[in-house]
Each structure stands twice: as C-alpha cells, then as structure tokens.
C-alpha cells in the first residue's frame, strides 16, 4: 500500500519539528522512497539512533505500509 509523501513528511516533522525532509520517489511507483532528513536533534547520536528516531516518528509504518524507505540522516551544517 503506497504512502503519500506529504504524510511521510508530516509524521517525521510531528516528532522532529526542526527536520528538513527531502523525499524522492526512487522507482516512480509511490512505494519506494528515499528520504534525506536533516535535524539538529541528531547531534551527538549514532547513525543507528538517528535512524531509530525517524522510524519511531513513522510509528510502525516502516517495513509494513511503507515498503521501502532508503534513509540518510545528518545534522545541519553550520
């Protein structure tokens, strides 16, 4: 079941308000997304922890409704 990008972005921002979210539809089927998430909240956290924050924001949709989300996280450059 494809998920719409506005909804993905809304869920991430609900949990990580300062996040800049950039979504790209990898295949054009609305079901395989690539997300780049930049937030100061990631500072001092490991990559695993950063990704876990995003997954948590998506509240269980990842791996289910959201079939594929390639994820890249980073902190804002000063």
């Amino acid at each position, binding site marked *: 079941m494809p998920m719409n990008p506005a909804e993905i972005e809304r869920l991430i921002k609900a949990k990580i308000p300062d996040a800049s979210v950039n979504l790209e539809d990898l295949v054009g089927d609305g079901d395989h997304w690539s997300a780049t998430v930049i937030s100061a909240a990631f500072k001092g956290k490991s990559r695993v922890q950063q*990704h876990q924050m995003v997954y948590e924001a998506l509240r269980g949709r*990842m791996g289910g409704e959201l079939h594929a989300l*390639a994820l890249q996280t980073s902190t804002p450059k000063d």
Partner: protein
Amino acid sequence: MSDNAVFERIKRDIGENNVVLYMKGTPVFPQCGFSAAVVQVLNHLGVRFKGIDILADPELRQGIKTFSNWPTVPQLYVKGQFVGGCDIVREMFESGELTELFNTSGVEVNIGADAAR
C-alpha cells in the same frame, strides 16, 4: 517460543560469531535486494560472516526486529553490536568507516577474496 528464547538465540549467535547478517534468503541466494546489497559489500571486503535467513523462521523474523528496535531486515552485527541496516552499511562502506570498524574489531578484511559461506 517466547521473546526470551528468541532473544537468547540471537545473543548466542551474535556472541559466537564475529560478523552476523540477519537477512532474507541466504548469502548465496538472497531473496531481497537490500539483503543482497549488504552481502555484496561483505563479500567485496572478503569478510567471513554468518548469514541467518529470517524467512525460514517466523519467530526470528519478528524477534530480531524487537531485539534491535529496528523495523527492517537486513541487520548487520559485528562483535555482538548492531551496526545497522542496508543504508547505514552502504554509507559506512563508501566512507571507509566499515573497513575501519572491522579492523578495530579484529575482524579480518581480505579485499578480493570471496568469503561467503
């Protein structure tokens, strides 16, 4: 089997093997592109690893996600520590961090040799 029994099995596997990849399919026949990508990275680095097929085991399929608080498979463990899924492994490989992690963990890297088993 309870969560506990599955967790015990996971702990034993990641404790007894330096490098463990929980994946869909086997290292020789991955059944998912993301799993195949991680296998490819490990093979490229010539790292010996144990591949565990979660498709063959419904309890493990759910258990490994709960264990690591990580919603997807593949999952790579080095020296008992969860390293990440496909995106993180790829990113770490490209930046050289993965090789460094293997080196500092005392895991032999042998680029060019195919060490899948």
